[in-house]
């Protein structure tokens, strides 16, 4: 069975391009996180997949059906909303039963008074009740079935929303920032539970979030989105260690990746502030990006000035300033390392294999260093 396939979707709001020719595939059983800053179009994309909003161009297929022209009700997708969107007048079990009642019962059968006399309705209702109970039990909601959403905590409402989504075995599972209304401790716990549910349900899952730690910890693949475009879709490890776009490199990772301006001469030698670095790349201006944990203090390296510290418990962040370019740099150190004084001149270095080079357009360029010579940096 096929999962979810988004092909060349575009959407404009007036002159604003919310989505610009976006394509994305989610295989059956795969969990893809769509991450980006607010306003990047990720929610719009999800709502187009759900059928709540329409695309200007492009096509969409879910579970081997072309659903581009179908309405939300006919797409067999389930969605968990940011504010859960539970029906406040219905009990927990009635909330969970809504998608089943809408699909399995005819309009007449759903009518309060007529329904009673319809033949076969009792069996249908009983079947729905059994499915509702199963979904509720799998989320530990059995004790709450007769409560109204107003009597539940945020975490419980969130489970009801999940139960309502899984109860009908959807072809695709959409989640729009489902954890953003929970407190930090509950968020980490629910994160694991959602992954667990996903394994059990096995539907193609698209998960929208602005929180990179959610995306990296939960997803099989992460799609980074910015300004209406998907910049890169890769495994969490590849997104972090091998970003193909400087915007991906700077968006993912906390504290932010360090950027150092540099220039490769005609022979391909990369110079930082006019001094050869020992890195090799195609000629032209480049930006060297290095994660804070890959920078270290050394007796010879880039001359910098220490600014101050942040103690994080398991590590220590050293804030420094690159003397030549005046760029602010962050170095992650072990907490028990000797700390330089603020204002002290220090030297920072890194290994060639950790350097990510980007060209002027922000695209990744290959490092031409021979792997065997990865240590041969001449930063001083």
């Amino acid at each position, binding site marked *: 069975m096929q999962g979810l396939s988004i092909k060349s979707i575009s959407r404009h709001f007036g002159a604003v391009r919310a989505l610009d020719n976006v394509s994305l595939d989610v295989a059956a059983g795969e969990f893809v996180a769509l991450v980006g800053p607010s306003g990047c179009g990720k929610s719009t994309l999800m*709502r187009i997949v*759900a*059928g*709540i909003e329409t695309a200007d161009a492009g096509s969409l297929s879910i579970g081997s059906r072309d659903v581009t022209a179908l*309405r*939300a*009700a*006919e797409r067999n*997708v*389930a*969605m968990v*909303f*940011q*504010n859960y*969107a*539970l*029906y*406040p*007048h*219905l009990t927990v079990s009635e909330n969970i039963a*809504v*998608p089943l009642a*809408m*699909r399995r019962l005819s*309009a007449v059968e*759903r009518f309060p008074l007529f329904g009673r006399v319809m033949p076969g309705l009792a069996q249908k209702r009983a079947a729905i009740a059994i499915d509702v109970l199963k979904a509720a039990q799998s989320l530990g909601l059995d004790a709450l079935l007769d409560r*109204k*959403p*107003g*009597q539940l905590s945020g975490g419980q409402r969130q489970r009801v929303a999940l139960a*309502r989504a899984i109860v009908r075995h959807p072809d695709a599972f959409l989640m729009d920032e489902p954890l953003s209304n929970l407190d930090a401790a509950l968020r980490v716990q629910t994160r694991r539970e959602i992954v667990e549910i996903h394994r059990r349900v096995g539907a193609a899952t698209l998960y929208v979030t602005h929180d990179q730690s959610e995306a990296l910890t939960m997803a099989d693949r992460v799609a980074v989105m910015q300004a209406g475009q998907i910049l890169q879709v890769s495994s969490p490890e590849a997104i972090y260690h091998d970003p193909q776009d400087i915007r991906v490199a700077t968006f993912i990772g906390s504290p932010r990746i360090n950027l150092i301006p540099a220039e490769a001469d005609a022979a391909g030698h990369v110079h930082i502030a006019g001094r050869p670095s020992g890195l090799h790349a195609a000629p032209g201006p480049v930006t060297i990006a290095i994660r804070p944990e890959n920078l270290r203090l050394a007796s010879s390296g880039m001359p910098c000035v220490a600014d101050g510290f942040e103690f994080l418990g398991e590590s220590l962040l050293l804030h420094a300033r690159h003397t030549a370019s005046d760029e602010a740099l962050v170095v992650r150190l072990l907490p028990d390392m000797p700390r330089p004084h603020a204002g002290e001149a220090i030297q920072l270095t890194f290994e060639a294999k950790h350097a990510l080079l980007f060209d002027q357009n922000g695209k990744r360029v290959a490092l031409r260093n021979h792997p065997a010579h990865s240590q041969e940096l001449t930063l001083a």
Partner: protein
Amino acid sequence: MPEALSAAQPASFQAKSRRLTRGEALVGLMLNLPAGIAYFLMLLLPSLATILLAFTDYELGALEWGWIGIANFEEMLEDRGFAIALRNTVIYVGLVTPLSILLGLGAALLIEAGMRGRALFRAVFFLPVVSLTVAMAAAWQYLLHPTIGPLNAFLRLLGVTSPPFWLSSSDWVLLSLGAIGVWENVGYNMVLFLAGLSAIPRELYQAAEVDGTKTWLDRFRLVTWPMLGPTTLFVLTITMIRSIRVFDTVAVLTQGGPNKASEVLLHTMYKEGFTFLRLGYSAAITLVFLLMVLGLVWLQTKALDKRVHYG
């Protein structure tokens, strides 16, 4: 141990539990006085006077009056005019309330669903609410006039040979007044429903769509109607109270006629009090009227409030 407890109490609590000095008490009393006097003179005294009057045979301008106990209420039970007025009022309320609520809701739903002209339609439907009923009654008198009125002219055009005498036939007069009452109330209800509709979270409609609602009616029954519950209860209460108070159209257009066919409670009360000057009897009617309104409000809040506020 008591020392430790009192030490733990915040300073403000200690200040509060301290006895007020006489001067402070006096100042407090003086500051309350203007509001107290206004409250007594404007709200308490008239109500109290009405209740007392209801048990007297006082007539306006009379030099002496006496306590007659519940004689006014006994008379009311015998009074055919009062019975007719009560019956007509109930019919009027039963006619105007559901119609003006349904039409108000319908108008609100249509305006909410429409793309253009929202402000225009809102204004048009709200116009009867802000216009003076007595002035508009004159327009209605012309519209419904049996011979020169446009309505009957139109009916004759359609081939109706003897169109009804809207305001002067005892079969039609209550219906005609009811129609004017609906016209008066629809705009008000519509505005309330519009406010209620705009407070429904969009996410619920989107969830309903993803959950498989295919028709407008499905979404109305799953989201709109239950979410409008508190609004509908308020509209129901306010419309009943507004229509049970019907007076100005009756006073201007029919004076309760023909043959008491459009006699309503407030008009009977007004006639007894200001035409026949029987203030005691009039006050008794007022009291009954007040109890009816209070009963309605109590019933609605007790019976329905629990069912429209969730969680």
